């Protein structure tokens, strides 16, 4: 488990003051937040440079296949600002960022911040629901599989989890879509013709949520299950469990009160670490079901390429990973006294 955390905290520096109570915690937090900000700055610079290394001219892409004259192309370049020197473009972009302005999408002609703003909630709904269900299912199955390790149940569950984990989300989504034969909508988060009102709209969104959520759930629950299973297995030989059993406690009490809480720690941190990644990992699921979230927006921006939109999405995705890593580290420190002590 410590491996998972250390890989996620590549920027972590040894802090000699960490042992000293309150100040240590503050310093720890300040250090982490500082490192996060540096990462974000790097993301801004790298994002800017990387997306300009993509071959091709956004103006050519936008006007592909329709009558355009060289004057029109030049006017379009001037309007988008892609005719300016690179350094000027970067300064404009960075200045905009400091004012909270992410720029204007080339293709959709709308402020990037607005576009991201309206796509964040669908992604949170989808990823949030899938994560909650995946954690619940994964922990439940993981505990059961570990407690009865080597049994048929364990073998089947581990096998199923590993299989689903390795299945391409894209393929699984399409298969579900075809297999359900129109029971659930093929696209989007809402139907165009839902009658207005809270309940019909709620039902409509729930109806649309089923397939993308199940697809995502099927793929992500496996890691929670496997981590829970292995960390519980590690605990199971511990002396305190033997003691608990020796006291004559019922088996399921030993499991619920003693073994599971101790084995839960790695999984909780994993949830936060994964949450940051899952936001970007929904690209394929959202593309299959045209779910109007951040993943789909990334997909659309890449196809352009729509540079301001790409940069904005990139910043938000990287930002969510940084923030979630920060949460995971803090949480780990809160949950596990051993980390605080060392």
């Amino acid at each position, binding site marked *: 488990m410590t491996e998972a955390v250390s890989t996620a905290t590549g920027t972590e520096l040894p802090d000699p003051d960490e042992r000293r109570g309150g100040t240590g915690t503050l310093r720890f937090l300040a250090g982490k937040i500082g490192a996060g900000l540096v990462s974000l700055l790097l993301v801004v610079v790298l994002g800017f440079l990387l997306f300009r290394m993509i071959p091709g001219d956004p103006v050519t892409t936008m006007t592909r296949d329709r009558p*355009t*004259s060289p004057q029109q192309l030049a006017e379009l370049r001037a309007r988008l600002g892609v005719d300016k020197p690179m350094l000027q473009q970067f300064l404009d972009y960075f200045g905009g960022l400091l004012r909270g302005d992410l720029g204007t999408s080339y293709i959709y002609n709308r402020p990037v911040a607005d576009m991201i703003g309206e796509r964040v909630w669908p992604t949170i709904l989808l990823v949030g629901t899938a994560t909650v269900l995946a954690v619940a299912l994964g922990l439940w199955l993981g505990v059961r599989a570990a407690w009865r390790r080597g049994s048929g149940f364990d073998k089947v569950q581990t096998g199923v989890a590993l299989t689903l984990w390795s299945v391409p989300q894209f393929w699984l989504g399409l298969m579900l879509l075809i297999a359900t034969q129109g029971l659930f909508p093929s696209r989007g988060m809402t139907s165009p013709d839902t009658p207005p009102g809270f309940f019909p709209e709620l039902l409509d969104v729930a109806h649309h949520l089923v397939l993308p959520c199940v697809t995502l759930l099927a793929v992500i629950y496996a890691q929670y299950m496997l981590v829970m299973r292995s960390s519980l297995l590690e605990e199971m030989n511990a002396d305190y469990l033997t003691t608990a059993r020796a006291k004559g406690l*019922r088996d399921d009490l030993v499991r619920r009160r003693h073994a599971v809480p101790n084995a839960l720690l790695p999984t909780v941190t994993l949830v936060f670490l994964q949450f940051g990644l899952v936001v970007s990992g929904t690209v394929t699921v959202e593309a299959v079901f045209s779910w109007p979230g951040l993943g789909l927006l990334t997909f659309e921006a890449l196809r352009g390429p729509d540079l301001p939109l790409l940069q904005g999405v990139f910043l938000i995705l990287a930002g969510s990973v940084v923030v979630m890593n920060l949460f995971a580290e803090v949480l780990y420190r809160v949950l596990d006294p051993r980390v605080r002590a060392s």
Partner: protein
Amino acid sequence: MRAVRNSWRRRAAALGATALVAAPVLATAPAQAQQPTVLRVALVQSIDHLNPFTASFASTAMIGRISWEFLTLASAEDNLPVPGLAESWTPSADGLTWTFKIRDAKWSDGKPLTARDAAFTFNRMMSDPAAREANGTFVEQFQAVTAPDDRTLTVTLKKPQASMTALDVPIVPEHIWSGVTDMASPETDTVAKVGVGSGPFTITEYQTNQLVKMKANEHYWRGAPKVDELHFVRFDNADAAVNALNNGEVDLINRLTATQFDSLKDKPGITTNKAVGRRYDELLINPGAQNFDRQPIGDGHPALKDVRVRKAIARAIDPATIIDKVLGGYGEAPGGIVPPVFKTYHYEPGPAEKYTFDLAAANAALDQAGYPKGADGVRVGPDGRRLELRLTGHATRDYDQRVVKYLSGWLGEIGIKVIEKLVSDNEVDESTSAGNYDLAISGWGTNPDPDYILAKQTCSVLPATAGSTSSNAFFCDPEYDRLYALQAAETDIPKRAEYAKQAQARYYDQAPSVVLDYKNALEAYRSDKFSSLTKQPVADGALMEQSGYWSFYGAVPAGEDAAAADSGGLPTGAWIAIGAGAVLLVVLIGVGVSRRGKAAGSDDDKE
């Protein structure tokens, strides 16, 4: 402990049961109301934005064509110009002044539509670069546009322009758009701005790249359409869209692949449409790229400047095989650069001019031209350079991946070694527009008026600076330019068509590119819901992406019986209830299993 658990379980069950009962009731109650007839269209291409001055994607151009009427339209019958907002039009003797008689019509908000609206639209495009973004090419030769009275529009030109009866420019209401100062501002995509039109349907709702809703325009001058609403819904996944058509979630879909099309062919309630397409696929053969000042640019192979080599390559290609194997049979045999869907201007080479597939003849021609085969079977030019040609294609396109294999096979047989370069779309664009290619797979969609596609092959569009080209194949030929100019200035259609065909014949003969095929447009619709949709051309044309709005305007809902049968499917709520029931069932089974597991588990541990 057990008691607590049981009561929790009972409560959950009660909740589930309530949901099961309540959901269908909740969902079906509003569905009892009178439903408008809705034609739901799946869009498998992006919707960029709706401002008719700047919207550039095919999907939004199509929506713009439905919202705002044009002066003239391409007819559904044969793509030739028919009246739109202009009842009639007369060019002056020198072809420099055009007078359009504007009909007595109304905007969808009830305000009168006059020639001043048209004059405003064109003047805005002429004076504001941002307003030229989408349709600027049409006003390039415009000197002045005036409206002497409400019914008369006068356009004076700098030089004659044959495409005056095919101005693909949506006319917008002055009373809405005169207040717009910044044409690039996002406010121009709001329903307040784009919701007033003069076409058969007007825009009522827009969600960026997700959904466009349109409502029938009761003021439409041809009379209100038979369908109440149009919904354009965006699918990022074409297979999901096909699935949605199968399930009746959408009624019309286009841009199908051959496989998808075949899968829909014999489905009950679905009618497929194989249309003669507006696109052609071509193999670019770099004829020696040059810029506007005739300075060579790029790094094309010198041997390709030799027209004999280009002709030999054209002879070594078998379009029949490409259509059969790569397009699955859904394509037409090639000729000129205006596709056969535009019959008036399409050029079909005669038996004497046609490059018939003949590897032996192609080999003999190259031998004769002074490109002998080396020891390894690869030909060597007079300058000692081997005929090793790069073939650039789009890695993302199935068509390119497959056609490249056939092309390199055939060219190998005539002693030309092909180096396949499948790269990203942007890289293809970049290398072809800079002249950095030998052979490249390309293609174009064309308009009913041939001017644009023909103009793209003239010397005048060669790039001023590298990479800024709008030339299609770096073709620059005085004879072609002469024929192009003749057709551009000719307003008599049969005469103009003759010049357009001669220009294409010249292009075909010089082979700066070889047309490989005209892809069919593959479409399908729910014929159980819509008994007829108008094609353009009526006989064998496409339903979507027309040069007009004929399919949507002409859509006739199927009879009452069919509609009733169709709405007989379970309503959304019922399916949610079933879903909820299924979840409940899974939970109950899960609980059952866990209890059994617990019992078994305890037993195991006791041993």
